[in-house]
């Protein structure tokens, strides 16, 4: 049924502003915003890992899962758009339990030996463990042997520290436009890979811009010549670039 006259329902469809509830707080939002964006605007913190402002969200780490009243399903806040009358719960015993378990799975998947990591003290995975009150890992560790790719002149890729958030893949593709990085393999065998599975140093397209290094949340991508806890990352270029592009 199509009609040219504006009915109340079609008028509602055109409204761009919605109101919703996040953790008992009434908030208003633009209908194309995500739950995560609206929560952040209202100082409601939802933990994230793969999310990076300025890159297309993936919804893949599942840390930012939230509950929506009336649905048994959980939704990734970074990719779920707000809607009128939505009631979002960002913190509950169930969510806390799942977030903890997911972070634990990341710790057992690779070999995050924090004490000898160049990113010790400045690592988002480590910080997430603190935030979620994780004092030990209940899951058995996998101890899969990983390689370290030191073939690049300036940088190093240590698969032992990688959480497969694909921030590097996205920043290289979406911002730098080089698409050096991608994911090879599947399941537990997934690895970040340069070009068509070349050593990073042999990549023809890498511009050595270092963007991937500085938005990597852990010690997986780092600068060479750094010792334990010495790697300082400067991800601030990304919001700056994003603002500049939007205003262009």
């Amino acid at each position, binding site marked *: 049924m199509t009609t040219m006259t504006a009915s109340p329902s079609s008028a509602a469809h055109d409204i761009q502003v919605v109101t919703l509830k996040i953790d008992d707080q009434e908030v208003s939002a633009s209908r194309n915003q995500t739950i995560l964006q609206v929560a952040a605007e209202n100082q409601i913190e939802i933990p994230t890992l793969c999310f990076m402002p300025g890159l297309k969200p993936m919804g893949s780490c599942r840390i930012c899962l939230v509950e929506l009243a009336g649905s048994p399903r959980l939704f990734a806040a970074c990719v779920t758009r707000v809607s009128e009358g939505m009631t979002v719960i960002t913190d509950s015993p169930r969510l806390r339990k799942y977030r903890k378990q997911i972070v634990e799975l990341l710790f057992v998947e690779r070999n995050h030996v*924090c004490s000898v990591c160049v990113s010790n003290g400045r690592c988002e995975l*480590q910080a997430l463990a603190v935030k979620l009150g994780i*004092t030990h890992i209940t899951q058995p*560790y996998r101890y899969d042997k990983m390689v370290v790719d030191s073939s690049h002149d300036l940088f190093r890729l240590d698969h032992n520290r990688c959480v497969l958030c694909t921030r590097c893949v996205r920043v290289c593709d979406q911002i730098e436009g080089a698409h050096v990085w991608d994911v090879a393999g599947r399941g537990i065998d997934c690895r970040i890979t340069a070009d068509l599975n070349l050593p990073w140093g042999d990549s023809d397209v890498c511009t050595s811009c270092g963007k991937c290094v500085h938005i990597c949340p852990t010690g997986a991508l780092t600068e060479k010549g750094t010792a334990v806890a010495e790697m300082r990352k400067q991800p601030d270029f990304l919001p700056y670039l994003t603002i500049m592009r939007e205003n262009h």
Partner: protein
Amino acid sequence: MSAKPRVATAWLDGCSGCHMSFLDLDEKLVDLAGMVDVVCSPTVDIKEFPQNVDVALVEGAVSSEEDLHKIKLIRSRTKILVSLGDCAVTGNVPAMRNFFTIESLFKRAYQENADVPLRGEPASTGRSIDGPCVAVPKLCENARPIHEIVKVDVHVPGCPPPPDAIFHVVAELLAGRIPDASSLTRFGK
């Protein structure tokens, strides 16, 4: 409680750094000494882990058959077992050997890196990869965190855990509470 709580410390496969951090409590050690009986510790010369220990702080991963024996004994004689530091909590550096076979590990440590010939053999001959297995307890296939072997009551991560975190944990335990050290320390701290 008439008698003072009986506290023990022990180390397995670690670097003793957690014990050093414990000693870094400095003058607080004096307060602590008045509150507890330290019944066994690498810093106290007692060979056999005693019975009826109230709190045991254990450093290091479980790496060898001796570690296995020790931790089971400690668990059976202790009320509250504390995993002290990253090696005890996560396996940490000792567990980095888990990617290699024990054979290749021994070859690397006792042959390739040996600066003295082993048992009269020149290091270059490669004729023996046994290593010093008579004098040293047999290694387990993997170095593992303590809670994968026995039940652990309190986990104190950190490499090493800061003295404040250790003091908080001990003080809380003495006050009869199970402490949560997550705000004072973390993996790798």
